[in-house]
């Protein structure tokens, strides 16, 4: 982008707000990681006896590291097969109802991991209300097959497959169609076109997608917590959580060292992702995207897709619904014993369920609102005043989101365990610390749509206004804000949707009266109240589906790239 810089931006007297913005970004996005790094470095320097070396010598550390790598690699492979495969089908063929398939396939990514794990647990094992209803439940004493490394990898693979899907599809949509047509005219078979042309051309998209799926699996907490902890199978995030839960802040030093290890692995993944993503072409040739004619096998392919969606989405959700309707765990669901008592209890409008709902609403709405207001000027500055410093800033904004949530939570505890100097406010143990962590983590989610929109916004408009004497405030009010507002709103909804169900960060930061919805589902399942946990999860899934529909409708009037799953 080489827009002429606007003169007012070169005027130093206008720089105060840019500096203020940079300061807030530093405070929210950079400081926590720095604090964590400082803690670990101080520890390494302290020598042999420090907790960093103790952690390095502990076999539990290496076992959990191995488990993390093993499950994440397996999950990434599965995500690759599922995500890339479906991307080829949906992006390259003349299959019908594409936006429906995309929507159904995106849903598993937006459903929070703890709910995914809970619903799959209700689908398998001898106690599954759904399997009992169908009379095909396994025998008593059969282990829950999901309480294993394979179970964890399976669910994480399904959850993160949409990330690969998005990356590959973005790549496929900009493939030069002319090349393929030329090849076809020269008599190349479909198979050769795929192998010699399309695969090599979307290699970067596949690899970038694999990297992002790997990083997400590495940081996933909900799934290994629900499936691994009962089997004493620990990955790095659950090991950190368990150490904090069992021994508290005494462990803060050790846990910080562990966090640095998992953070470092994640950063390698992020670097790989950026590397391949930057090689992807951004804009393709004009014209219609590729659409291979499936011919007579089209219906077969559609049925196949339907089966996959049924398997990875519909069945687990049905199992969840079945479990929310039984009078007690282990009771088979029959038409005469359907019970809505869990829903009635939940909607009675008081108690911990309601409070968690209120807290999550407050946290996610405030985070979404504040972040929308941060994202607007940030996108403006980065696009209008391209500087080396800002591309660096862009990476920093990404860090708290790319880091495993547990790491960010530990960083926030380190930062706020003691009262904030000068103000003498203790954020630890209040909703404030969770809000801070959300601001840090989700800035990039809110920023990306606005940034994408800003990139496509012609600077000439603003210049014309400036030539006519419109002040900065006036230009923001009459031009910039109205043009960016839809994207900012999309970012707002995205942040809200992710934050309202967030578990990883709040699992370590919640306290009395400050539970979040994610923590509630996790704790209820933990306390044996599976039926209630299922009922809450059913409502969560419904809310997510609804919000995604709203975003989809909104997305029709937005520029490309604003809603991640819309092209």
């Amino acid at each position, binding site marked *: 982008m080489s827009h002429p810089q606007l003169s007012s931006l070169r005027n130093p007297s206008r720089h105060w707000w840019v500096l203020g913005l940079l300061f807030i970004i530093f405070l929210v996005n950079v400081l926590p990681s720095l604090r964590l790094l400082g803690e670990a470095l101080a520890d390494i320097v302290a020598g042999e006896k420090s907790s960093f070396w103790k952690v390095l010598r502990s076999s539990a550390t290496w076992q959990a590291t191995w488990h993390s790598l093993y499950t994440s690699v397996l999950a990434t492979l599965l995500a690759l097969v599922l995500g890339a495969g479906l991307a080829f089908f949906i992006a390259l063929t003349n299959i019908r109802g594409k936006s429906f398939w995309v929507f159904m396939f995106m849903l598993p990514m937006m459903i929070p991991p703890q709910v995914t794990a809970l619903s799959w647990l209700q689908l398998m094992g001898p106690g599954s209300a759904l399997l009992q209803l169908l009379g095909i439940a396994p025998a*008593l004493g059969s282990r829950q097959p999901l309480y294993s490394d394979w179970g964890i990898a399976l669910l994480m693979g399904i959850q993160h497959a949409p990330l690969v899907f998005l990356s590959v599809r973005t790549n496929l949509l900009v493939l030069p169609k002319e090349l393929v047509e030329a090849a076809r005219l020269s008599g190349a078979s479909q198979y050769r076109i795929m192998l010699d042309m399309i695969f090599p051309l979307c290699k970067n998209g596949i690899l970038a997608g694999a990297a992002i799926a790997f990083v997400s699996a590495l940081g996933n907490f909900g799934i290994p917590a629900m499936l691994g902890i009962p089997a004493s199978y620990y990955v790095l995030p659950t090991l950190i959580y368990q150490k904090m839960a069992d021994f508290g802040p005494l462990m803060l030093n050790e846990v910080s060292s562990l966090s640095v290890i998992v953070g470092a692995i994640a950063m390698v993944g992020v670097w790989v992702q950026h590397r391949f993503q930057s090689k992807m072409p951004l804009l393709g040739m004009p014209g219609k995207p590729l659409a291979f004619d499936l011919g007579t096998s089209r219906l077969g392919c559609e049925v196949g897709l339907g089966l996959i969606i049924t398997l990875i989405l519909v069945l687990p959700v049905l199992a969840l619904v079945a479990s929310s309707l039984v009078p007690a765990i282990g009771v088979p669901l029959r038409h005469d014993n359907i019970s809505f008592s869990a829903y009635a209890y939940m909607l009675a409008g008081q108690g911990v369920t309601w409070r968690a709902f209120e807290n999550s609403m407050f946290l996610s709405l405030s985070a979404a609102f504040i972040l929308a207001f941060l994202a607007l000027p940030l996108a403006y500055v980065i696009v209008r005043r391209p500087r080396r410093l800002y591309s660096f800033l862009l990476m920093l904004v990404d860090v708290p989101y790319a880091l495993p949530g547990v790491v960010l939570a530990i960083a926030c505890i380190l930062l706020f365990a003691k009262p904030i100097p000068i103000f003498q406010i203790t954020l630890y143990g209040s909703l404030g610390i969770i809000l801070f962590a959300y601001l840090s983590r989700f800035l990039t989610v809110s920023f990306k749509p606005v940034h994408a929109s800003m990139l496509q916004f012609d600077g000439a408009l603003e210049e014309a206004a400036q030539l006519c004497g419109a002040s900065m405030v006036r230009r923001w009010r009459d031009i910039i804000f109205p043009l960016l507002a839809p994207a900012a709103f999309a970012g707002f909804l995205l942040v809200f949707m992710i934050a309202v169900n967030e578990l990883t960060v709040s699992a370590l930061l919640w306290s009395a009266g400050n539970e979040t919805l994610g923590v509630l589902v996790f704790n209820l399942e*933990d306390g044996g109240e599976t039926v209630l946990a299922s009922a809450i999860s059913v409502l969560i899934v419904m809310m997510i589906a609804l919000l995604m529909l709203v975003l989809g409708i909104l997305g029709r009037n937005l520029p490309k790239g604003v809603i991640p799953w819309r092209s």
Partner: protein
Amino acid sequence: MNFRVLSVSAMLVGVVFSGSLQAETLVLYTSQPAQDAQMTVDAFEKANPGTKVEWVRDGTTKLMTKLRAEMAAGVVKPDVLLIADSVTLEQLKKEGILAAYPSAESKAYDPALFDKDGYYHGTKLITTGIAHHANAQQKPASWKDLLKPEYKNQVAMPSPLYSGAALIHLSTITANPDFSWRFYESLKENGASALKGNGSVLTAVASGTSPYGVLADYMAIREKAKGAPIEFVFPAEGVSMVTEPVAIMKDSKQPELARKFVDFVLSEPGQQLVLEQGYLPARNGMKTPEGFPERSQIKLLSFDAAKALENSETDKEGFSKLFN
């Protein structure tokens, strides 16, 4: 622009803090299952209009970790504790962080069930026995049945690293010469799995992933009443027991309200609620809930509280080594 952002965030943060500083709010840490805790709190709020109780539920051992974390950070949250066992409270009493309150209600209680200085009062009797799935092939009658080959890989139990009742159970069994640590070692050899709290054991037994489980009585008996396929057995050798005591924190900001809460839980209406929730009430002269034997019929394994307190850390460590 950034001023607006700052003022909005300041406003929002302000809301957060004002919320937590409201008067007449009692904070309760409890290991009761969430729905029971809610019932107790609702009943107390109803009996004392204008008061509000915020509560946190977690396993006793985990709650203690949370409490210590907060003490280290200088933000102690709870006014009242209602947790599984008296051994944990005896420890807190020794550390001097509890307030004594010799409630007048304790006249109606067996002196063994409360601290004589009033630092804590038992509220119910919760025994740990064996639960099994209604369709399970074996009908266990004794603790040692769980070591038989028919039970290989079929038994679940709560972890003392999570649950207070499980810790007391561990100390009762290991201090007993008939069982000792050998019993737990044999359980491990027989493929028994240590889950988290009693809640996870209940799920495992009722859903059939582990048809047999070491479990707190009320969980099994109550779920059975709801129709769940689960049975509870008081093993022949006897059961271990906790009393789920209530105690007031010394640094409580609402000491008056905290005392009211203690009196409420110990009072007859409070104990009636305990009965309705399906627990054995601790107060003398109360009925027994549906599905329980008479109080006098329940055989207890011998238990030495002083020794349990002394050994609690090594017990936890030993268990953790064996099962993790």
